[in-house]
C-alpha cells in the first residue's frame, strides 16, 4: 500500500491544475477527429520538458487517459473515431446518435470509461511493484533482449506488414546509434555537426506523429457538416442503466486489462475484442450495429481499462503496452528516469504521484467528460485548415523550445514528411520511434554484455544461454510468429471478400 503514502502529493495546487488542464485538453484533443492520443502526447512532450518530472508525467498521463475517452465523442456524433481505440465505439454509438440518442450514448461512453479506467489503474498500482522486483534480476543480456522484444512487439502489432514493421524498428535502432557511443565514447555517423548529439527524440516524436497526420488530414479533407440533435437525457437514468449492465462492464474491463498487459497491443485491439465478446454472449445479438448500448459500454470500458495496464510493462521493463505508452517512455527518459526498479526506489515519490494522478484523472475525466460532451459539437467541427495550421505551428515551436536548436526543427520536418510518404507504402511511425527510444538501452546493454562475454565464452553464449535469456528470446520469436499468422489470416480474409 505504498501508493497511499504519496496520495496527498496529487492534491497540491500545481498538480491539480495540471491534471485539470491535461484532462480538459485531452478530452478536446481526443474529440477532434484525426488527433490520436499518440499524437497528442507527442505534441505535449516538449512542454513537459520545462516542468518538474512529476508535473510533466501528470500532464502526459492525464492527456493519455482523456484523449482515449474523448475520441468517443466524434466516434458517436460523426462516425469518425477520434482515436484508433474508439473504432468499436462507432459501430453502435453512431446508430444511437442517428436515433436521436447521442447524449445517452455519450453518457454511457464516459461512465463506462470511468469504470474501466479505475479498474485498469488499480491493476497498475498492484502489479507494477511486483514486476519491478522481477526486473531486479535482469543483467545486460536480459535488458538487451527486453529492448529488442519491445521493438519486435510494436513492429508486429502496429504494422500492416511484419517485414515493414521490423524494418522500421531496425531503422529506428540504427538512427539511435548516430552520435556518441555511450560506452566507448566514439563518434559515429556524424555527417554534419548538427548530429553530434544524435537525433533528438522529441524532434523525432513530434515529426513522426504530427506532420504525417496533418498531411493526411489535408489530403482527405473530410466534410464534418453532419447535423445532429442533442436530446435531453437525465444523467441519473444513464448512470443507473449503465451500472446495471454488469456483464458488458465486466467483459470490457477484463478484456482491456488483459490486452493492456500484453506489450504493444493497444486500445484498438481492446475495444474490438471486447465488442466481439459482448456480442457473442449477448441475448440481443441482432441489435448490435444498430445502436445497442452494451456495444458502447463494453468497447469504452475496455479501451480505458487498457490505459493503466499498458503502463505496467513500460514502467517495469521499458516495454510499452501501446504506441502511446511508447511515446510516454520518451517523456520518462527526457527527465532522466529509466524504467525498472529504480522508479520505485530512487524516484518512488515521482512515480507513485504519477500513478495516483492517473486514478484521480479518471474522476476528472468522468466529470469534465460528461460536461464537455454537451459542448463537443463545436470542437469537432473545427475546420481542417485551422487544425492543420495550428498543429504545424505548435510542432515547430514545441520542437525548437527543447534545445533552442533550428536543426531539431529541420530534423522534425524532414522525418515528418518522409514518414507521410513511407506511410503510403505501409510503414508506420511507432516502430521507428520505439527503435529510437530503446536504441540506446539496447546498445548500452549489448556493449556491456560484450565486455562481460569477452572474459567468458563469447558474446553468442552470453546472450543466448540461461533460462531468462531463452524465455525473452522465445517471446521475441512468438511475437514475430503471431504477427505473421495475423498477416496471413488478414490476407486470406481479404482474398475471400
Amino acid at each position, binding site marked *: 500500500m505504498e501508493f497511499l503514502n504519496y496520495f496527498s502529493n496529487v492534491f497540491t495546487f500545481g498538480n491539480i491544475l495540471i491534471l485539470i488542464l491535461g484532462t480538459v485538453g485531452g478530452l478536446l484533443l481526443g474529440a477532434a477527429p484525426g488527433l490520436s492520443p499518440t499524437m497528442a502526447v507527442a505534441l505535449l512532450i516538449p512542454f513537459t520538458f520545462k516542468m518538474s518530472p512529476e508535473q510533466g508525467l501528470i500532464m502526459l498521463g492525464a492527456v493519455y487517459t482523456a484523449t482515449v475517452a474523448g475520441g468517443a465523442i466524434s466516434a458517436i456524433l460523426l462516425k469518425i473515431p477520434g482515436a484508433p481505440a474508439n473504432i468499436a465505439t462507432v459501430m453502435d454509438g453512431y446508430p444511437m446518435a442517428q436515433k436521436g440518442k447521442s447524449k445517452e450514448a455519450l453518457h454511457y461512453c464516459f461512465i463506462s470509461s470511468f469504470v474501466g479506467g479505475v479498474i485498469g489503474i488499480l491493476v497498475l498500482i498492484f502489479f507494477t511493484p511486483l514486476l519491478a522486483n522481477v526486473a531486479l534480476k535482469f543483467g545486460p543480456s536480459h535488458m538487451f533482449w527486453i529492448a529488442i522484444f519491445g521493438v519486435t512487439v510494436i513492429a508486429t502489432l502496429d504494422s500492416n506488414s511484419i517485414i515493414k514493421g*521490423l524494418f522500421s524498428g*531496425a531503422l529506428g535502432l540504427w538512427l539511435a546509434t548516430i552520435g556518441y557511443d555511450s560506452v566507448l565514447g566514439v563518434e559515429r555517423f556524424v555527417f554534419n555537426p548538427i548530429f553530434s548529439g544524435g537525433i533528438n527524440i522529441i524532434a523525432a516524436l513530434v515529426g513522426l506523429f504530427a506532420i504525417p497526420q496533418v498531411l493526411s488530414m489535408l489530403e482527405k479533407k473530410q466534410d464534418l457538416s453532419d447535423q445532429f440533435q442533442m436530446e435531453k437525457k437525465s444523467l441519473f437514468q444513464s448512470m443507473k442503466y449503465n451500472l446495471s449492465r454488469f456483464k458488458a462492464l465486466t467483459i470490457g474491463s477484463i478484456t482491456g486489462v488483459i490486452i493492456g498487459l500484453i506489450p504493444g497491443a493497444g486500445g484498438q485491439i481492446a475495444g474490438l475484442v471486447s465488442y466481439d465478446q459482448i456480442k457473442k454472449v449477448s441475448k440481443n445479438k441482432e441489435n448490435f450495429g444498430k445502436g445497442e448500448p452494451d456495444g458502447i459500454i463494453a468497447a469504452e470500458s475496455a479501451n480505458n481499462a487498457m490505459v493503466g495496464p499498458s503502463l505496467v510493462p513500460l514502467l517495469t521493463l521499458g516495454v510499452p503496452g501501446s504506441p502511446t505508452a511508447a511515446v510516454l517512455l520518451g517523456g520518462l527518459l527526457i527527465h532522466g528516469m529509466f524504467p525498472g526498479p529504480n522508479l520505485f526506489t530512487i524516484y518512488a515519490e515521482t512515480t507513485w504521484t504519477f500513478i495516483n494522478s492517473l486514478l484521480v484523472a479518471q474522476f476528472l475525466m468522468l466529470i469534465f467528460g460528461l460536461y464537455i460532451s454537451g459542448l463537443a459539437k463545436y470542437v469537432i467541427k473545427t*475546420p481542417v485548415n485551422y487544425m492543420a*495550421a*495550428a498543429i504545424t505551428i505548435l510542432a515547430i515551436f514545441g520542437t525548437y523550445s527543447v534545445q533552442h536548436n533550428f536543426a531539431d526543427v529541420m530534423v522534425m520536418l524532414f522525418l515528418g514528411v518522409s514518414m507521410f510518404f513511407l506511410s503510403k507504402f505501409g510503414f508506420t511511425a511507432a516502430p521507428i520511434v520505439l527503435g529510437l527510444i530503446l536504441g540506446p538501452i539496447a546498445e548500452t546493454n549489448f556493449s556491456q554484455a560484450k565486455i562481460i562475454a569477452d572474459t567468458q565464452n563469447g558474446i553468442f553464449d552470453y546472450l543466448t544461454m540461461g533460462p531468462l535469456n531463452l524465455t525473452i528470446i522465445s517471446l521475441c520469436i512468438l511475437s514475430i510468429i503471431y504477427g505473421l499468422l495475423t498477416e496471413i489470416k488478414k490476407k486470406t480474409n481479404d482474398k475471400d471478400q
Partner: protein
Amino acid sequence: MIKINKLSSVVLVLILSILLAYASFSGGTSEAYIFPKLLSTVMIILSFLSLVLYFYNKNEKITEVDIKKLSIYLGSLLLFLVFGELLGFYFLAVLIFLIICYVYSEKKNKKSIFYNFLITLCFMIFIYFLFAILLKVQAPRFFLF
C-alpha cells in the same frame, strides 16, 4: 494526383539499407560499430525479403498521393526551413498560418478571409504568450517580432 508504384518504395528501402550498411562497415574496426553493423545486416535481409514478396504478392501495387493538393503545405514547410532563421519564427508562422487557412479553406469570400486573420491573430497571441512569456523561448526574430 500522382501514382507511385510500390516497387519504387521497395527499391528505395533496399538502397537505404545498402547505404546504411556501407556507412556502418566503412566506419572502422572499433567495437562501437558492431551494433550498427548488425542492424544494417538485418535491414538488408528484410529489404531483400520485401523485394521478393513484392513479386510474389498479387495485391494492389499502386499507391496514390495527391501532391497537387499538398504542394502548398509542403512549400510552406520548405519556406520555413529556408527562411526560418532569417525572417524569424513569429513572422513566418503568421504567414504560414494564413497561407494554410486560406488555401485549404472551403470558402474564399471576404468574410472567411476576415475570420482567417482573426483566428491567426488569436492563435499567434497564444503562441507568443506560451513560448516567449511563459516558457522563455528565444525563437529567432525579425524586426519587431
